[in-house]
Every structure is written in C-alpha cells, then in structure tokens.
C-alpha cells in the first residue's frame, strides 16, 4: 500500500487526476451500496440507474437539445457579463465620483438575492432565451465588477512608484502595473461568475422555458423520474467543475508568484 499512497500524494497532474478519480469511485460505490438498503426509488436511485437514464437521454437526442438551449444561453450571457463587469469595474476604479455614488448601489445589489426576481424577469421578457440571458447576466456580473475594482485598487504602491520614477505615463502605469496586477483578481471573479451563471440558468429554466437542463430537471421531477433528475444534475456539476478547475489553473498561470 505504501508506495501507492506515496505516489498519490505527489504534486503531479497524473496523481491529482487519479486522486479525483479515486474519490469519485469511492462515492459511487458507497452510493450503490446505500441504495441496496434504501429501496424507495423516489428518494434514492443507484448510480447505475442514473447512468442508464443519462444514456437514454443521449440516445433519444433530448440531452443534445437541452444542452444547446442551456449552453448557448449561459455561455453567451456569461461572456457578456464578464465584459460588462470588467468595464464597470474599470470605471469604478478610475473615478472616485463613480465609485462613491455607484459603489454602494452595486454592493447593495450584490447582496440582494437577485435570483428571487426570476419570476419577474420571465413575466417581463417572456419564456425563452431573453429572460435566461438577463437573469444570468444579473447574477454573474457582480462578482466580476467587485473583483475588477478591488484588483485595480490593490496594485502595489511601490510598483507604481517605480514606474513613475522611470517617467511612465498614466496609460503606461495602467498597462504595465495596474492591469497585470489586477488580472488574477479578475479571473477569480470570473470563476465565481461562472458558478453563479450555472445557478442562474437553471433557475431561469425552472421558471420559464421549453428546453434546457433546468427545464428537463423540472419535468423529470414532475414525473418522479429521480434517475433523470440526477442525470442532468450530474451534467451541470461537470460543467461547473470544468469551469472552476480551468479558471483556477488560469489564475495560477497568471500569478505564479502568489503560490510560493
């Protein structure tokens, strides 16, 4: 056993991948065993059933239809949120007036659970793409705004002074110091935004849509098809995980000096 443990503790990509796989397998096995004892299939279905349900959805094409609806809405809205969030964050960080007047409003909005307004958005914008797009935008934009402003304001004073001492212009200070310094902060905001965007899209689809993962989960749960519900939740979880891991990797890549 010893050498196996030693191998898994290594800090390599292979070892960390194996660690994830191993813990996933443990969870699946445990789940399968527990579902041998809990036999109410409304409460708990074994992972094998979930896999079958998911496979069925792939075969009949529903998974694809729903994926197209969800992914187009969430990705387009997420990208727009990031762009708008960075622009607003830049504006707030560059103008004291804006940050004094707009800042409190934004942080108030940030702490309001905007997701609760989902039914209203659906009423205003109707069923389908528009209401999903706007709801996702509303929940995903704030983390980007907040981290962009904070990152731009955090820039190290000595670095700025060194740039000034070399006669740097305001624009040069921004491009060579302030912005690179803020970049990893912004990416961490983007990572949070992606997680929030996924929650936003599911809720939006619960309330008003004819297609998408949220829609599929809702309709499956209305027919008490727990395996199908969990199948779609699994797909959403995978999307969340992939986003989170890749943005975290990007953050590390952009700011390797913060690791040590």
């Amino acid at each position: 056993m010893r050498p196996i443990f030693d191998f898994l503790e290594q800090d390599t990509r292979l070892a960390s991948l194996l660690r994830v796989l191993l813990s996933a397998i443990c969870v699946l096995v445990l789940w399968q065993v527990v579902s041998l004892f809990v036999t109410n299939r409304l409460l708990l279905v074994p992972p094998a059933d979930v896999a079958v349900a998911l496979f069925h959805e792939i075969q009949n094409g529903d998974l694809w239809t729903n994926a197209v609806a969800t992914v187009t809405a969430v990705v387009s809205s997420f990208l727009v949120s990031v762009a708008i969030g960075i622009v607003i964050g830049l504006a707030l960080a560059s103008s004291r007036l804006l940050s004094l007047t707009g800042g409190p409003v934004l942080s108030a909005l940030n702490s309001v659970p905007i997701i609760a307004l989902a039914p209203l958005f659906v009423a205003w914008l109707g069923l389908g793409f528009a209401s999903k797009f706007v709801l996702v935008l509303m929940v995903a934009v704030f983390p980007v705004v907040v981290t962009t402003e904070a990152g731009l304001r955090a820039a190290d004073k000595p670095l700025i002074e060194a740039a000034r001492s070399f006669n740097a212009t305001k624009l040069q200070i921004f491009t060579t110091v302030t912005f690179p310094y803020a970049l990893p902060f912004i990416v961490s905001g983007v990572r949070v935004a992606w997680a929030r965007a996924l929650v936003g899209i599911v809720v939006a689809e619960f309330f008003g849509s004819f297609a998408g993962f949220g829609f599929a989960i809702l309709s499956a749960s209305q027919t008490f098809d727990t395996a199908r519900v969990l199948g779609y939740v699994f797909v959403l979880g995978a999307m969340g995980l992939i986003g989170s891991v890749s943005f975290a990797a990007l953050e590390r890549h952009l700011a390797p000096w913060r690791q040590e």
Partner: protein
Amino acid sequence: MTALLRVDNVDKIFSRRGKTAVEALRGINFSIEEGEFVSIVGASGSGKSTLLRIIDGLLEPTKGAVFVDDARVEKPGRDRAMVFQQDSLLPWKTVIENVAYGLTLAKSPWPQASKVAERFVAMTGLAGFESHYPHQLSGGMRQRVNVARALAVDPRILLLDEPFAALDAQTREIMQTELLKIWQESRKTVLLITHQIDEAVFLSDRVIIFSARPGTVREEIKIDLPRPRDLELKRTPEFVGLVDHIWKLIEAEVRLGVTASEG
C-alpha cells in the same frame, strides 16, 4: 566648477487634513560633484527616503528646490534613476524584462532594450538567470536586478535607498564591493542612503549625517581613504576611527529616534 546635483534649502512638511502635519525635512543644503559617491546616514524616520524621492522628482518639496546641472527638478527624468528601499520588481516579468523595464517605458524597441539589459544583467552577476521570475530569486539577486534596472537607463545620477538593508551581513559585503566595482566602471554619480555607518564609510567620498526628525544636515565628513578599496580596508585603524567618529555624532539622534518610535 558647478555641482551636478544641488539640493537648495529643501523643506518638506507632510500635511493632510484632519491629521497633525509631519515635518520631515528642514533646510537641507548640499551638493554633489559629477562622479562623486556620497552617502547619507541618519536615524530611522529622519526623512532620508523623503529626500531621495524629492531628488528623483516623485515628491515636491514644500520649500526650496533641487537642481541637476542648474535645471530645476520638477518630475522624474532620464538623468536620475532610483533603487527603492522596498521590493519593486514586477513579479510577472522575467529578470531581463525587469531590467529592460525603464527602456521599454521610454519606447526603446525590444531588440535594443534587451541587448542593453543583457549587458547589465551580466555586469550585476545575474547571467544565466535572464528568464527567471523575481520570486525564483534570492533577496540578494532581486536587489541586483533592481540595481541593474536603474543602471540600464544610463542615468547620470544613481539614487540608492538602503538597497542592501534586507540582506544578511555576508551578502551585503559582497554587494558593497560589487557596487564599488560597478561605480568605478561606469563613473556614475551615486547618492546612497544607508543605516550602516561602515557601509557609508567604505563606499563613499563623503558622508552626510542627518539629525533625527525633522531631518537636517548635521555634518558632512570627507572620507579620504585610498581607492580602489577592498574589504581589508574595514580593519584599518583609519576606517575604524571614522566609523567611530560618525557613530558618536548620530548616537544621540538614533537613540532619540528609537525611543520616539517605541513610545
């Protein structure tokens, strides 16, 4: 012969609304000839860094002025370059990019800038580390990069703010001899701030002693020790005598500074 750098009656008072004003510098007067190596020693908080910032053009004096070649200093310029007390390398740039930073800010194209930077990387003993990042270097190496970055813009006056303060004793001594070598090769005018009296005496033609806050020029001492100097010099009675003399001059001030900052 007119001086290259002239500090003329400089006062600096930091005043911010709602806070008591801090008088950092009062009536500072001195000048430095071309090619001279001058050090400033003084208690912590006596305004040494503030004075260097004013000379560099980062801060405005409250009264008085600084002149380089009889031109009044109003902002940072290419004739001066500063090595800061704090770590101020860009962590996302490699050694070579950091050394070339001042040149790229001055719009020098990369092939030229990197060629110049390479020369100073080699001069400061960093050859082979061009593509390392600052966090992969030791403290001593980071300070070499700082010095190389300042030298690379080919300033007439090099302003050094306690560049070796964070280094251990051995590394500091090595850096001192290397700084002397670089100074002899490049014939720059150097103004160095330091806490170490023996460092000031070892390196300088002249040592300016500051009083505690508000900083004033307490005394100027000419160091007539022969050059080129090596570490042997530090054990000669002349050297020890000079260090002792300066130490006595600022002892009271340092004690004042220490008790003030503790209290």
